[in-house]
Structures are given as structure tokens and as C-alpha cells.
């Protein structure tokens, strides 16, 4: 009994730093957010308990659901591009040669740039008056007058932002895929070659099945990142036109900070967090199944 109690204490002592960290930076904010979601609180006035009012209001708030639907649409568009594009790049660059290493590095460089910085960069590149994108298209004779990429047409804005984010993050998936592909035992590849498998057959029958867990991991990261999209839309369109490109997090931010409705913002955050939790659980289940 004494030994096991002592072992427990030692175990807790080892866990303590991580436990304190999780309690301070995850559990406490989460509990605070739940508490806030049951109150009306502007930070500058005392909080007032309102029960489930903020949740009722959220379910009746058209703009929140418009933002939510747009976020899902954005996620549905960008995720396949990132996965398929990243995987194709990984297939092209997974072998070791100087040119491939340079290509990998070049594609990966934007990953280390902050999303805010890259969004600002692309905001100026897409600028109707001063942007290089329009200038390049005009010089190539593809357009006769400047294209208004951002904030005028929701579809076009989404396309432009998707392009900028793909440039920024596709290297992340590519590097993970390269690692997974390079981890495939050489004997398996050689066996498939001896069996006369074509390159296409090797990719679809050998490489893809053996890297499926990484594909699901990258998908999970991409889906969560896209559902939490904020910086790029805040900087490049500010939700325009007519609030059609406002993402869920952007709407949460607007309510929480500029509008100073922290309680309502917290309720919206809770709904969003639960949605992401559902996505995560489904994907984790799929991951387990693929592993089994």
C-alpha cells in the first residue's frame, strides 16, 4: 500500500508541470468561457446572468449561420486542394536529389511566414489598383481591365483567399507526406517493382495505403484549421461583400471584442467548439479504423 501510494505521488509529481499547464491554459479558460456564455458581460460593466439566452439567440441569429455555412464551404473547398496538392507534391519530391530538395524547401518556406503577414502580402498582390496579380494578367493579355478580387464577389474572394492560403500552408502537408512516403520500407517498394507494378499501381496499391494515417492526420489538421479561419478573412475581405465572406471565428471576434458582447461571443465559441469536436471524433474514429 505504502509503495503504491508513493508511486502514485511520484507519478503525480512527474505529471504536475504538464497538469498545471493544462489547468491554467486549457481548463481554466474553458470553464471561464462556459461561465461567460451564461452571462451578458461587456468587460466594462458587471456581468449579468442570463441563463441560456445567449444560446437561444445564437440559434436564431441568421448572420451566425451564414458565417457558419460559409466556413463549411471554405473548408470543403480548401481541404481537398491541400490534401491532393500536398500529396502530389510529396510524390514528386520524396526521392532525394538536389533539385527535389530545393523544390521541397521552396514550397515549404511560406509555412514559416505568419498567416497575418502572408494575408497582408496577398491583399496587396490582389489589389485592384496596385496589385501585381492584375498587372501580370493584363501583361499576358488575359484581362482588359482590373479584376476586383477581394470584397466584391463572394465566390471570387473565396477563390483568391483559398489561393493565398494554399500557397501558405501546402508545404506543411507536403513535408508530412514526404516523411510518410520515405518511411515505407524499401523492400516493399522493391517487391512491387519485381512484381511488375507500374508507377500508378505502386502509388495507388502500395504508397497510398501505407500512408493513409498521415493523410487522415493532415486532413484533421486542415479541417480544424479551416473551421477556425480568421486572419486571412479579417485582413483580406473583412467579411465583405455583404458579410458573405465572414467566417464563424470572425463573427465570434466581432461580437466579443469590438461589440464587447463577451457572453454572446462565448456562446458562439461553444457552439463552434462542439462542432469541431464532432469533426475531430469522426476523423479519429476513421483513423482508428484505417489502423485496424
Amino acid at each position, binding site marked *: 500500500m505504502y509503495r503504491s501510494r508513493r508511486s502514485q505521488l511520484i507519478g503525480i509529481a512527474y505529471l504536475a508541470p504538464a497538469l498545471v499547464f493544462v*489547468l491554467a491554459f486549457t*481548463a*481554466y479558460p474553458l*470553464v*471561464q468561457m462556459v*461561465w461567460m456564455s451564461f452571462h451578458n458581460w*461587456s*468587460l*466594462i*460593466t*458587471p*456581468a449579468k446572468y442570463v441563463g441560456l439566452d445567449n444560446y437561444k439567440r445564437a440559434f436564431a441569429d441568421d*448572420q451566425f449561420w451564414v458565417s457558419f455555412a460559409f466556413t463549411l464551404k471554405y473548408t470543403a473547398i480548401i481541404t481537398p486542394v491541400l490534401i491532393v496538392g500536398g500529396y502530389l507534391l510529396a510524390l514528386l519530391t520524396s526521392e532525394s536529389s538536389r533539385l527535389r530538395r530545393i523544390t521541397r524547401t521552396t514550397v515549404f518556406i511560406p509555412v514559416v511566414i505568419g498567416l497575418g503577414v502572408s494575408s497582408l502580402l496577398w*491583399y496587396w498582390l490582389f*489589389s*485592384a*489598383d*496596385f496589385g501585381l496579380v492584375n498587372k501580370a494578367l493584363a501583361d499576358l493579355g488575359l484581362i482588359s*481591365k*482590373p479584376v*476586383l*478580387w*477581394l*470584397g*466584391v464577389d463572394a465566390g471570387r474572394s473565396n477563390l483568391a483567399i483559398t489561393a493565398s492560403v494554399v500557397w501558405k500552408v501546402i508545404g506543411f502537408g507536403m513535408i508530412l507526406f514526404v516523411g510518410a512516403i520515405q518511411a515505407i520500407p524499401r523492400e516493399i517498394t522493391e517487391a512491387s517493382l519485381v512484381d511488375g507494378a507500374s508507377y500508378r499501381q505502386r502509388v495507388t496499391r502500395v504508397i497510398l495505403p501505407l500512408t493513409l494515417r498521415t493523410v487522415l492526420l493532415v486532413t484533421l489538421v486542415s479541417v480544424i484549421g479551416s473551421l477556425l479561419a480568421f486572419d486571412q478573412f479579417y485582413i483580406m*475581405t*473583412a*467579411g*465583405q*461583400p*455583404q*458579410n458573405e465572406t*465572414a467566417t464563424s471565428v470572425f*463573427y465570434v471576434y*466581432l461580437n*466579443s*471584442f*469590438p*461589440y*464587447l458582447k463577451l457572453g454572446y461571443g462565448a456562446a458562439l465559441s461553444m457552439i463552434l467548439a462542439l462542432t469541431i469536436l464532432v469533426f475531430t471524433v469522426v476523423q479519429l474514429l476513421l483513423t482508428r479504423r484505417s489502423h485496424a
Partner: protein
Amino acid sequence: MRSRLRWPVMLAAATLMLAACSQGTDEPPSTAAQAPAATTSCASNGELTMWERSGGNKQMVDLLVAAWNEKNPNCKIKLTYIPHTEMVGKIAQGIASGEVPDLMGMDLIYAPQFEKAQQLVDLTDRIGTWPELKTASKGHMTVATFENRLYGVPLYADVSALFYNKDLFKKAGLDPDKPPTSLAELRAYADKITALGGDTKGYYLPGNCAGCNIFTVGPLMWASGAKIEAAGPGDEPLVGDGVKQVLQFTREMVEAGNVPEGARSENGETFHLQFGSGKVGMMGTGNFNITLARQQNPKMDFGIALLPGMTPNSSASFIGGDLVVVPKGSQRVDDAVNVMKFLLSDEVQVEVYAKALNLTTRTDMVDNKYFQAEPLVQDVAKALDVGRTPYTLTFFEQINSPQGPWLKMLQRAYYSDDNLDTVITDAKAAMKSIANE
């Protein structure tokens, strides 16, 4: 099972107690009755902390702080800039956590909500009788006052006016010394300038920027007799024929091709660069554009007039800028009051504000040697007499937000064929709903 549940419950309870304990605010150390008479120097020694938003007139604020620091080396101001879009949240967080600066610059339109929440120090008994305040910018003083109590003084003023390119006026056969005095003239002049061809356009409307539009289109409505925002619960927004008349005017300007197509995506980032490009004949913008346009396009000859309304010679302007206020919890209220006295002093008004060709915050200081040598500043200073500042507790939601009803209404007017009565009715309902919350 029971013990497993106990820990999370205790944790939640502790969290709630901690949160509840963090709501207190500190009182300022001295009351108005004990306060010494204000001077333009230190009341005590030690660094003063000040916050200011980064998107405002940084150049002016830097000069003012440098002037104070030079005169008062024992109580220098340590200035921290907060990103403009973060300012309201940052102040609110500072107030909630008790970590506030000794004084701060605040975008004047947000002052009423902080005054109502009693988060600013009431300065009425300390500064209310100052003679300088009789001529202080009336827009600033309106929003610095809540229920007859005074909470701040002007830090700097930005006013909107109609800038016009005299070179393009001459090319279009217009008299460069006769700017438009009504919306009908504005339209006729814009048509002639656009007719010059190329990428020259007669007018500019920022299609995706709520703040730019209240600054430059709002005055067109005020000059036409309209009222825009709902001041509070039950108040009626968008009142008067001027609203529809101005929306009709702007729609026709866009339809006639008088506005550059790129303006539709203007979210404020390049707004200040448009007039200096030399390709826009007329544009509502602010006094800050005088220096900027000269730097951008030194050879361009331009003039400044007041923003007109429907009736000839009617005019209005948006008085923007910042207030200096003292947040509750400030430990240096006496020094903060002295900084205010310093800012309003004759010497600073002339030798700092006017010398840098910025507007003075007192109208009786407009007639000075620096402005006399610079007629454009004198022209733009006239806007202080006809200007106003919206007064509402929900300015951001109603007007300034990119998601707000004001911008939505303007975009529908500029770029759709929607019936204008419906457009106004929808915006009115949304504004009332926000104000009634």
C-alpha cells in the same frame, strides 16, 4: 465516481470565485476637492503612462508627447500604441483587470459607452470651468460629455472636407476657384472630369469601408438635413429626405462611371492614397490628406471646400479624432489633468499643432501665423464650424463595423438596383435593433 466528479466541480467553483474577485476597480488617489490647481507642468515626479491607438494621427501625438517631455523631464510620458482595431477591447480588458495607464487617447466616437459605464474619471469639477474649453472643438466636447459631466478634452481633430484637383478642373473647362456648392454641381463637375477619359474619374466613393463612408458620405446627408445614427433605445435613425437623396446621388454617380471601379473593393487600406494619385477629380477626405497628397504628387495643384448637401451652399463635416481621457484606476489624475491643460494652452495650440499644419483643437487658435502661410489648412479648418460627431453608445455596431447596417445600406445603394426605400427601411430596422439592445 463521486470523487471523480468532485475535482472538476471544485475547479469550476474556484474559477468562478477568481473571476468574481477580479471585478473591482480602484479609485483615483485624490478627489476633485483636494486637487491642486491645474498647470502645464508635472504635479508629481515619475513616468506617466499613456495609451493611444495606432491608426490615428500618430505623427501629431508623437509631437505633442515630445513637447510635453521636453518641458517636463521629471514626469515624461511613456506612450504605448495599441492597434486601432484592438483599442476598445484592450481598454476594456485593462479596466477589467485594473491595469490601466495614467491617461489615454481614445477614438472620440467610443467615449460615450465608456462614460456611461463609469469607467472614465469624471473631470467636471477639475476642468469644467477652464476658459479654453469654450472654444474647444464642439464635436469632441459633445462626446466628452455624458449626463452633463465632463470626461475629457480634445487630443487632436480630423475633419472631412471636399478635396478637388485644380489641374483636372482646368482640363475639364471648370473654374478651379469655384468648387461645387451643392450635390447637383458636384455631379455636373464629376461628369465633365470623367469625360476627360483614360483612367481619370470625377469622384471617389470607398465601397467597402464603413468608417471612410461615415467620414465622407455622412456629411453629405447631414448637409441635406438628415440624421443618421440612433442615439439610444427608441431613437429613430436615418431620418430625413436627405438620406434617400444622397443614396440616389451616389447610385447615379456610380452608374454614370464617375467612380473608379477599384473603389468597390476599397476597405480603407488605400483610401488615403487615392486623391494624391492625381486621377480623381473630387473626393471627400480628411485634413491629413493635405501633407500626404503633396508628398505623393508634389506638382498637383488642389483646393479644399466643404462637403455640400442638396441645397446650394449647405455644408457639413465629420469631426473625428481622439480625446484625452483618464481611465478609472489611474494613479496620476493630477498629472493627467495637467497634460490636458498643456494641450489646450495657446503655446501648444500654435507652436505644436499649427506649426505641424495640423488642426488646432480650439477654434480661436485657427488664426495663427502658420495657417496664414498655408491657405489650404485655413480652408479645411472651416469644417470645424460646420462639423459634428455622431453620438451613440453603439457606434461600432451601427456604423463602423464592416458587418454593420450602415455599410450594407450604402453597398446596396451603390451597387444594386434594390428599391432605395426598402434599403433604408432595412437599415433603419437593423440600427434600431442594435440601439435597443
